[in-house]
């Protein structure tokens, strides 16, 4: 009798739990948690690999070789998992970031998907590797592929940065348009000298234009990830620093424009 009640309760609750899990969206926050988890797993497997490797190099026995092989397989698998989780997190971050054109977003996400597929396939091939040398070749293959993956990742991060600045620029442009319309209304009323305000609005317009120029500069730098500068990891890192610096300048110009706007409003309401 007790067992029957338990079974009925389980049958009642299991579909509810399952339904709740399906409803939960796999968003960036969850993807990031998975990424952090895979990193922890990878760090642990890397430590095991280093220990097994040094023991094998010292002992040179079959047992040590087998242990080194197992540890290497785990480490390579975990490494692929980290890359897959990382790319997935970037993909979802791209989805959630506003200001990125749909065509651009779709294009970069397709390339990310391609990388994810490659590393999944690579991961499935690792366990079938026979010898330590095969595992070394397998690792080198992933390393070569990751050079391209890193370029795509840097491009995606640059697009995310550009999208944020574009959204901010759009907001300031909207505020500027609204203020300009109001200034025309005030001018037609003739009860307030708006000429100075209108001149200052032009200054804000210039700030927005210069911010756009900086964003275009950053976008052109992004293309260099696939050029000579992007061949080396250090070059890619330096290039990404240049890209983010250009976007930071673009954002600073928007900040200046907003400060001008605050000054204008202070005059109008003072």
């Amino acid at each position, binding site marked *: 009798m007790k067992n029957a009640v338990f079974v009925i309760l389980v049958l009642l609750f299991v579909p509810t739990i399952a339904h709740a899990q399906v409803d939960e969206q796999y968003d960036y926050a969850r993807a990031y948690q998975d990424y952090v988890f895979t990193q922890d797993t990878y760090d642990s497997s890397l430590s095991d690999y280093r220990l097994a490797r040094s023991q094998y*190099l010292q002992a040179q026995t079959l047992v040590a070789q087998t242990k*080194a092989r197992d540890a290497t397989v785990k480490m390579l698998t975990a490494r692929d998992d980290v890359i897959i989780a990382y790319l997935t997190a970037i993909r979802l971050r791209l989805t959630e970031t506003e200001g990125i054109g749909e065509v651009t977003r779709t294009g970069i996400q397709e390339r990310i998907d391609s990388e994810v597929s490659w590393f999944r396939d690579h991961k499935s091939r690792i366990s079938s590797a026979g010898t330590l040398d095969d595992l070394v070749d397998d690792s*080198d293959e992933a390393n070569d592929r990751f050079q391209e993956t890193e370029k795509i990742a840097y491009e995606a991060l640059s697009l995310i940065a550009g999208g944020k600045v574009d959204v901010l620029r759009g907001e300031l442009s909207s505020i500027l348009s*609204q203020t300009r319309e109001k200034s025309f209304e005030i001018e037609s009323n003739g009860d307030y000298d708006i000429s100075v305000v209108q001149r200052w609005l032009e200054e804000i317009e210039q700030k927005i234009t210069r911010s756009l120029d900086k964003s275009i500069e950053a976008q052109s730098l992004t293309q260099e990830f696939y050029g000579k500068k992007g061949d080396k990891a250090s070059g890619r890192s330096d290039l990404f620093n240049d890209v983010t610096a250009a976007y*930071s300048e673009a*954002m600073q110009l928007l*900040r200046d424009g*907003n400060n001008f706007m605050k000054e204008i409003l202070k005059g*109008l*309401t003072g």
Partner: protein
Amino acid sequence: MDNQPNQNSQQDTAQQMPNLQDQTQQPTQRPISGSQGVQSEQATPPIQEPLQNASVTNTPKMKIPKMPHLKIPRKAVIGAIVLVVIFIVLMVLLVVAQNFMNANNGTTGPISENSPTPTPTTTLGSPYADDPDILDIKNKVEEFESSLNSTRIREDTLRIPVLEWDVNFEN
């Protein structure tokens, strides 16, 4: 006959000199001249010669003349104090009466409208200080500023992962 009384009188006057000086309040060396001398001769004619002899034997003392001691009558002081007290009491009564009158009229203090000093005029603000469109723009600017402050260009959590690529089994 004439000299005897004079001698007696000289002795008497010699003895009486200090008293005389006290009365006249004048030093003995001072020459007597003019009408004062005549008067003293008339009043005490035989005094002059023995006065010189007396000066030899008894040196006269210099005495500083005393200031006349002014005495204010006590009644006058009391009267003045009474007058001052009466004046203060009258003033207090006047103020109280004025306040009482103001309270009855419904006013508690001086009326600012009748003040002779002009009140400072405040400058009028912008006619668009409370304009709804301007306030809307102001809110948007504040929201935009908070967006600017919260935006991070770099995705610090999505940095390229640091991975071990140097996999080999050679010493």
